[in-house]
C-alpha cells in the first residue's frame, strides 16, 4: 500500500492542570479514503479533528503525539509554519457556516483571501470561478459580490467546502458540517462531498455524532468514547458486527425509519473529563464488565483485518437482538382525546402576516401516539403551541374530551390545563436555574391539582421514580444535572399535573443518541402504564418511526400526508414525503455511493 496520506500517532491533548481530554489516538488514512469519527458529546472527537490542523481550542493544549500529512509534520510547529500548512495540506469545514464566514467579506473575496494566503494568487479569477463551479455554486460576478448572509444555509456550507478545497489539499477535515441543515439539504451536501472525494481522491476525516450519516459516507469508522478510540474498522463491520460493548450499544440506540426497531439505550451517564477512572472508562455502564476491566485501561488490539478494538471482552461482544418495533394496542373505538379542526395559526411580523399553519385537522385517541413531522418552517411547533395554549389560533377549533379549549392557557379551566401538558426541546433552559428540582415538580401539583405541601412532596418522589431518577435528585439544582437528567425532570414536572395528553416538542433533539433512546423508551413505558396519549413533534423520521402509531407530514403549514407510520414511511404517497424519506440517512440501508467506487 502506498504511503498513507495521514498518520496520527499517539495524539494526546490536555486541559489545564493534569486533566487529559484525548489520549492514545492513532490511525492512518490513505489517499481517497474517508474515515468517520463517531462519538457523543464529551468523547473528544472535535478535539481530535482540530488537532489534525494543529489547533487546540482555548483552554486546551496539544501535549504530545504526531500528525503527519503527506509526509509533513503538523504538530509542534511555529505559528508561521502552521499557517503555511493549514489550507495547503489540511483544511477544515466547520459545523456552522453562518458564523464561520466573515459577514463583511464578499463571497468572491473569501476565496481570494485563502488563495492569497498561500501565494496562489496568479490567475485568481479563474481559480475562484473554478472552485465555485466545483461545489455547484454560481460563479458569475453578481454572485461573487454577495455577502454570506445573502446565501442560504446550504449555499453557505458549499462555500465553506469550496474554501477548504481551493488549495487542493490532500486531506480535508469536516466537523459535523450538516448538523444545522434540513434533511433534504443535508442529503444533497453529503452527495456533494462524496462526489468531490471521488473526483479528486482527497482523503476525508468526517466527524459526527450521527452514525447513520457517517455510515453513508465513510469507508472506515472510528468510535470514540471518553477521549479514546474504542473501536476502529470498516464501516460495514462496525455496523453489523461491532466488537466493543459501547459501539454495540450505540448502534442499537440509533433510530431507523427503514426498519423501525425497539431502541435500547445505554444506561448511565458518560463521565466528565475530570472523573475518568484508571481502568476502562466504559466499565461502569457495561454489561460485560469484569473486575479485570477496572484495573487497567485496555489497549487497542487488532481483532481482524483493519479492525481494532479496545476491550478485553471483545470476543463476547455481540450486537443485542434488535426487535422490530412493537405496535401499541389501542382500545378499539376509543374516544378521540384531542381533536383539532381546521386549525389556522399566523405570525404577525413587521413585514406582514405569515401563515404558519392552515387547515390542520387531526385527532389523537386515548393512549395513542401521533407524530407531527416536518422541516423547520413546517408549522409543527406552532401547532403544538396552539394546542397547549401558548399561541392563539386565528381560525379553527381545538377540542379536548369533546370540549372546546380557549385560545390561551390562562383562559382555560384548571381541569383543561391539567389535561394537556408540554415538554420542550432544550433541556438547558426548560428548568428555572434558581429553583430546586423538588420545587419545579411540586408546583404544578400544587397549582393545578390543589395538593398541599406534604402531599406534593410525596408526589415529587413518585414522579422521580417514574422517570427513573434517584430520589436525591429532588434536592439538586438544574445546573448540577446532565441534559438527559434535566429532560427527565421536565417530563416529571409535566406528569405531576396528571395529564392525559403529553405534547413532546422535539424533546430528544438536543440529546445524545444513547440518551435519546433511553428517554424514548421511558416515554413508551409511560404511555403503557399511564394510558398517556402523546403528541410527538419531530423532524427526525427515525425517531418518529420508533415511537409513533400515526404520523402527519407537514410542509409549509399544510398537511401533505397522514396515516399509519409504517405505511407512510414505507410507501409515501406525496412527493414531499417521498423526498424526505429518501433523503433521511438510515443505518440499516446506508447509501451505497461510496461502495460503488471504492477500490
Amino acid at each position, binding site marked *: 500500500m502506498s504511503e498513507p496520506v495521514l498518520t496520527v500517532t499517539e495524539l494526546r491533548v490536555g486541559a489545564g492542570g493534569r486533566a487529559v481530554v484525548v489520549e492514545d489516538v492513532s490511525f492512518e488514512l490513505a489517499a481517497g479514503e474517508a474515515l468517520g469519527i463517531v462519538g457523543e458529546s464529551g468523547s473528544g472527537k472535535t478535539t481530535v479533528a482540530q488537532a489534525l490542523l494543529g489547533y487546540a481550542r482555548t483552554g486546551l493544549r496539544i501535549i504530545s503525539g504526531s500528525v503527519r500529512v503527506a509526509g509533513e509534520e503538523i504538530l509542534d510547529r511555529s505559528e508561521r509554519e502552521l499557517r503555511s500548512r493549514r489550507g495547503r495540506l489540511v483544511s477544515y469545514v466547520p459545523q456552522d457556516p453562518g458564523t464561520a464566514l466573515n459577514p463583511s467579506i464578499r463571497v468572491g473575496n473569501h476565496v481570494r483571501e485563502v488563495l492569497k494566503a498561500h501565494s496562489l494568487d496568479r490567475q485568481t479569477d479563474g481559480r475562484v470561478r473554478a472552485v465555485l463551479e466545483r461545489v455547484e455554486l454560481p460563479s458569475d460576478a453578481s454572485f461573487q459580490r454577495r455577502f454570506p448572509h445573502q446565501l442560504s444555509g446550504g449555499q453557505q456550507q458549499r462555500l465553506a467546502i469550496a474554501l477548504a478545497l481551493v488549495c487542493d489539499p490532500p486531506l480535508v477535515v469536516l466537523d459535523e458540517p450538516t448538523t444545522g441543515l434540513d434533511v433534504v439539504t443535508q442529503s444533497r451536501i453529503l452527495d456533494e462531498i462524496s462526489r468531490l472525494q471521488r473526483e479528486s481522491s482527497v482523503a476525508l476525516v468526517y466527524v459526527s455524532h450521527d452514525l447513520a450519516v457517517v455510515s453513508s459516507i465513510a469507508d472506515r469508522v472510528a468510535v470514540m468514547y471518553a477521549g479514546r478510540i474504542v473501536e476502529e474498522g470498516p464501516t460495514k463491520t462496525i455496523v453489523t458486527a461491532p466488537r466493543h460493548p459501547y459501539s454495540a450499544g450505540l448502534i442499537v440506540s440509533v433510530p431507523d425509519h427503514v426498519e423501525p426497531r425497539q431502541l435500547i439505550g445505554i444506561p448511565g451517564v458518560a463521565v466528565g473529563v475530570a472523573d475518568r477512572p484508571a481502568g476502562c472508562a466504559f466499565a461502569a455502564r457495561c454489561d460485560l464488565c469484569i473486575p479485570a476491566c477496572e484495573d487497567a485501561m485496555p489497549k487497542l488490539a487488532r481483532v481482524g483485518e483493519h479492525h481494532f478494538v479496545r476491550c478485553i471482552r471483545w470476543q463476547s461482544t455481540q450486537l443485542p437482538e434488535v426487535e422490530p418495533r412493537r405496535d401499541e394496542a389501542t382500545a378499539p373505538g376509543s374516544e378521540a382525546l384531542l381533536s383539532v379542526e381546521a386549525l389556522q395559526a399566523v405570525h404577525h411580523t413587521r413585514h406582514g402576516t405569515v401563515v404558519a399553519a392552515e387547515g390542520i385537522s387531526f385527532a389523537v385517541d386515548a393512549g395513542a401516539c401521533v407524530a407531527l413531522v416536518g422541516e423547520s418552517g413546517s408549522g409543527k411547533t406552532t401547532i403544538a403551541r396552539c394546542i397547549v395554549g401558548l399561541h392563539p389560533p386565528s381560525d379553527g377549533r381545538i377540542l379536548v374530551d369533546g370540549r372546546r379549549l380557549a385560545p390561551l392557557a390562562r383562559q382555560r379551566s384548571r381541569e383543561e390545563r391539567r389535561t394537556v401538558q408540554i415538554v420542550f426541546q432544550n433541556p438547558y433552559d426548560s428548568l428555572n436555574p434558581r429553583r430546586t428540582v423538588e420545587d419545579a415538580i411540586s408546583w404544578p401539583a400544587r*397549582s393545578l391539582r390543589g395538593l398541599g405541601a406534604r402531599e406534593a412532596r410525596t408526589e415529587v418522589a413518585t414522579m422521580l421514580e417514574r422517570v427513573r431518577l434517584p430520589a436525591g435528585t429532588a434536592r439538586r439544582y438544574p445546573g448540577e444535572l446532565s441534559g438527559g437528567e434535566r429532560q427527565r425532570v421536565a417530563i416529571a414536572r409535566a406528569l405531576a399535573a396528571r395529564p392525559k395528553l403529553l405534547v413532546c416538542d422535539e424533546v430528544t433533539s438536543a440529546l445524545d443518541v444513547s440518551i435519546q433512546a433511553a428517554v424514548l423508551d421511558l416515554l413508551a413505558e409511560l404511555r403503557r402504564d399511564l394510558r398517556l396519549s402523546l403528541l410527538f413533534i419531530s423532524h427526525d423520521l427515525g425517531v418518529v418511526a420508533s415511537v409513533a402509531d400515526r404520523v402527519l407530514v407537514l410542509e409549509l403549514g399544510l398537511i401533505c400526508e397522514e396515516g399509519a407510520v409504517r405505511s407512510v414511511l414505507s410507501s409515501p404517497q406525496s412527493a414531499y414525503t417521498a423526498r424526505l424519506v429518501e433523503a433521511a440517512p438510515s443505518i440499516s440501508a446506508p447509501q451505497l455511493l461510496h461502495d460503488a467506487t471504492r477500490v
Partner: protein
Amino acid sequence: MSAISVGRTLERRLAFTRSWLVRIGLVVLAFVLGVAFIGPYFAPYSPSVIPGIPFSPPSGTYWLGNDYLGEDVFSRVLSGGRTVILYGALATLLAYLVGGPIGLLAGYARSRVDGVLMRAMDVLLAFPPILFLLVVATGAGANIYALVIAIAIIHIPSIARILRAATMEISVRGYVEAAAARGDRTHVILRREILPNMWGPIVADGGPRFTVSILLVAAVNFLGLGVAPPTADWALMISENRAGITINAWSVVAPALMIALLTVSINLIADAIASGLGKSVDVEALRR
C-alpha cells in the same frame, strides 16, 4: 464552529483573576466608609467652628491646615463624606424603585405599553446628564433634594432599558413558557420565574450605577448647586478652597483624595462582581 465557541466559554478563567485588586478595593472602601460615617465623631474641631487663619499650612494643631474660612480641614474632611454617599445611594435606590418595574413590565408585556414606555425613555436619554441637572437647578434653585430626584430621573431610562432587555431574554426561556402553558398568572410568573433570575443583572448594574450617582452628586455639590455652606462636603470643599490651592493645597487635595478613593474602590469591586456573575451565566448555558 460551535465546538470552538464551547471551548472558549468553558475556559476556566479564575473567578476573580484580579482578586488581589478586589481585596485592596475592599480595604480602601472600608476605610473611606469608616471615615465618612464614623469620622464625624472623631473630629477634633466642630466643622463649622472658625478657629484659625484662612489657608494656613498644616501644623501641630491643624493637621491638614485651614481652609478658606480658617476652619480645620482635617475635621471637615472627617465630616464631609456622608453627604455624597447617602445622597448618591438615595438617588440610585429611587431610580431602581421606579425604573425597575418599568423595565420589567415593558419587557414582559411587550405590547404597545412597551413601545410607549421606551419612547418616553428615549426622550430622557437625549440629554447630557449634567445639562439636565443644571436645567433643574435653574428651576428649583440650590435644592439638593430636587437634584437627587433629578439624578434618579437620569438613571431611570437606562435602568428601564437594561432590565427590559434582561426580562425579555428571560421571558423566552423554556421555564417561563412552561409556566405560561400551565396558565400561571402573570404576577406569579414574575415572582416565581423571572424575578429570581434578575438579581444577576441588577447587581452587575448596581455597582457602577452607584458610582455614577456619587459622581453626579459630587459634581452638583462642586458647582455649588447642591448642599450649601456651612455643610462639610468633600466636593463642596474642593470648590470652596480652589482659590487657595497655591497656599494650602491640602484644603483641596485632601477631599479630592477621599472622593477618588471612594469611587475607584467601588468601581473596582463592582467590576469584579459583574465579571464574576457574567462568567457563571456563560458556562452554564453552553454545555452541549
